[in-house]
């Protein structure tokens, strides 16, 4: 269940309370997020929509521990990440967050297997265990037969599948998708969305996704709209303005 009006403690997987983010540019303060509250439960699939500059990616970066808020707190699975030190936050990301980017961001000199293996290099898994995990992840995204292919030898849709395999291989607590279909044609975009939905439905993954595309957003359980840094509207599935059921 997703809520945007909670202010107290909850049992949600992700709790965001009073989140502010302000940038300073040329002496001018730009408030990107304002007093944002959000609760996301395990297994939720939420899409964030909004015009450019509305703070979607900033929110995703804060949730993923890539940036720190000006005020407020983010708690994930009981860990408050807003006050973690740089190294602790990095370790936390490795354990809890799977990132899927618009431009796939694969390492071009590594093949699909090696790209997917990257997060596992940070674990204590043996080489053979790493191999099993990578093969499983590539199997989930339907690319078990392409593990020796380099990114340049794959289509955009296939590259994004490899990126998804990399995001799920270490079994993170939740996935953050920043315009995962933004660089794909409709057919490939549909395939990627099918895959993400499968991760939610079959594997119980929690997914937070930023998108400009209403068609893609409709595939999420819930769509939240960000405008000028405020969650002003909640989308489908019985979500009412100011609150989400």
């Amino acid at each position, binding site marked *: 269940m997703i809520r945007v009006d909670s202010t107290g403690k909850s049992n949600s997987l992700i709790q965001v309370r009073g989140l502010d983010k302000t940038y300073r540019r040329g002496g001018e303060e730009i408030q990107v997020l304002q007093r944002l509250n959000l609760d996301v439960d395990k297994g939720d699939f939420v899409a964030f929509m909004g015009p450019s500059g509305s703070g979607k990616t900033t929110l995703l970066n804060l949730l993923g521990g*890539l940036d720190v808020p000006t005020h407020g707190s983010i708690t994930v699975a009981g860990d408050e990440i807003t006050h973690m030190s740089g*190294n602790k936050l990095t370790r936390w*990301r490795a354990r809890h967050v799977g*990132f899927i980017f618009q*431009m796939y*961001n694969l390492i071009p000199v590594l093949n699909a297997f*090696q790209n997917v293996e*990257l*997060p596992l*290099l940070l674990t204590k898994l043996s080489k053979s265990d790493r191999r099993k995990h990578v093969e499983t992840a590539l199997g989930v995204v339907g690319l078990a037969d392409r593990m020796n292919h380099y990114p340049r030898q794959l289509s955009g849709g296939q590259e994004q599948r490899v990126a998804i395999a990399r995001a799920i291989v270490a079994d993170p607590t939740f996935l953050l998708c920043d315009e995962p279909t933004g660089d794909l044609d409709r057919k490939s975009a549909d395939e990627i969305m099918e895959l993400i939905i499968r991760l939610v439905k079959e594997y119980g993954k929690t997914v937070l996704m930023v998108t400009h595309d209403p068609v893609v957003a409709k595939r999420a359980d819930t769509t939240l709209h960000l405008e000028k840094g405020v969650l002003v509207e909640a989308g489908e599935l019985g979500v009412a303005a100011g609150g989400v059921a």
Partner: protein
Amino acid sequence: MKFRGLIFANLFRKKLRLILTIGSFAVALFLFAFLAVVRGAFNRGADIAGADRLVVINRISIIQPLPLAYRDKILRIPGVKAVTHNNWFGGVYQDEKNFFPQFVIDIENQRKVIPELKVPDDQWNNFVKDRRGAIAGAKTAARFGWKVGDHIPIKNALFGGESTWDFNIDGIYHSERAGGDESQFWFQWDYFEERMPQSFKGNVGWYVIKLDSPDNAVAVAKAIDDMAANSSFETKTETESAFAAGWVKQFGNIQFLIMTIGTVVFFTLLLVTGNTMAISVRERVSELAVLKAIGFTDRSVLFFVLAEALTIALVGGLFGLGLAAIAVPVLAAALNGLLPTLILSKTILALGLALAVFVGGVSGLLPGIGAMRMRVVTALRRV
């Protein structure tokens, strides 16, 4: 190491650039090794000189003679243990390019004063008995394939017009000291004096003195120079080490020249590799940001950049030093004894490798720190 694949994959990202950068290291290290070998060759005389020996030459120049009569006067100076005298011969064996130093020696005192140049006793005894006998250094003997019993004709135009001097190789000497000169050719003073022009008789080229103790060097040197002061043959006496160093200085300030070239080469190498590493890091800012995003620490990123720089440096360094190890003996053979022995020592190799690692480390450090400090959010926005 589980990160090896990632490091090597990044290294081979631009093969031409990798080859050129490794090539830069190889050339620089080859040059370093070569310069160090030449410097070592020039300095070896001073390095291995006996601390308890003095060399006495004519104050005007070493090519000016000194009276043989000085020998007994020098011997009487307190602190002097033994005196021997030598003369430059300057002969030609078969062809002028077959250069090697030939010295006329005083058979009675040569081994007392310069004991580290070893000749087997039986060979020495034969040499002493043979007026036309000669002792060749092991290196020169090997160079021309000489063995004991061979007859060697040497042409000379310095003493008494152009003539051929015949010698019998009675012995081969070896140096006890590593890097010692084994290129000399010795023959007897008596044979030399017999054929030298009347005008030169009674003169020697220089004296080498063995001291009771190195502590007496200054006092004995002063006593010798005072003894010859205001005579027609004033002397310049200095330690063997100072003499060898002075000899090198005749060629110019080799040390300064080599240090200057070496510094310029390594500074340029630092700029080239530093720039290469900076470009290499800049090209993959987004990839490094992704690594950080998925959980690689700042230190890991620094480690990757440094590992790449150090690998390039090590491979290039080993390649350059390996080339030097092949080239130095070839060069030494080609120089035919024109320079003192060229030796690529383990110290030079270790120092070269250490320099390569240092340059590699420094060139990778700045881009590595940049990558380490890079903010993921900012870097990802550049995509």
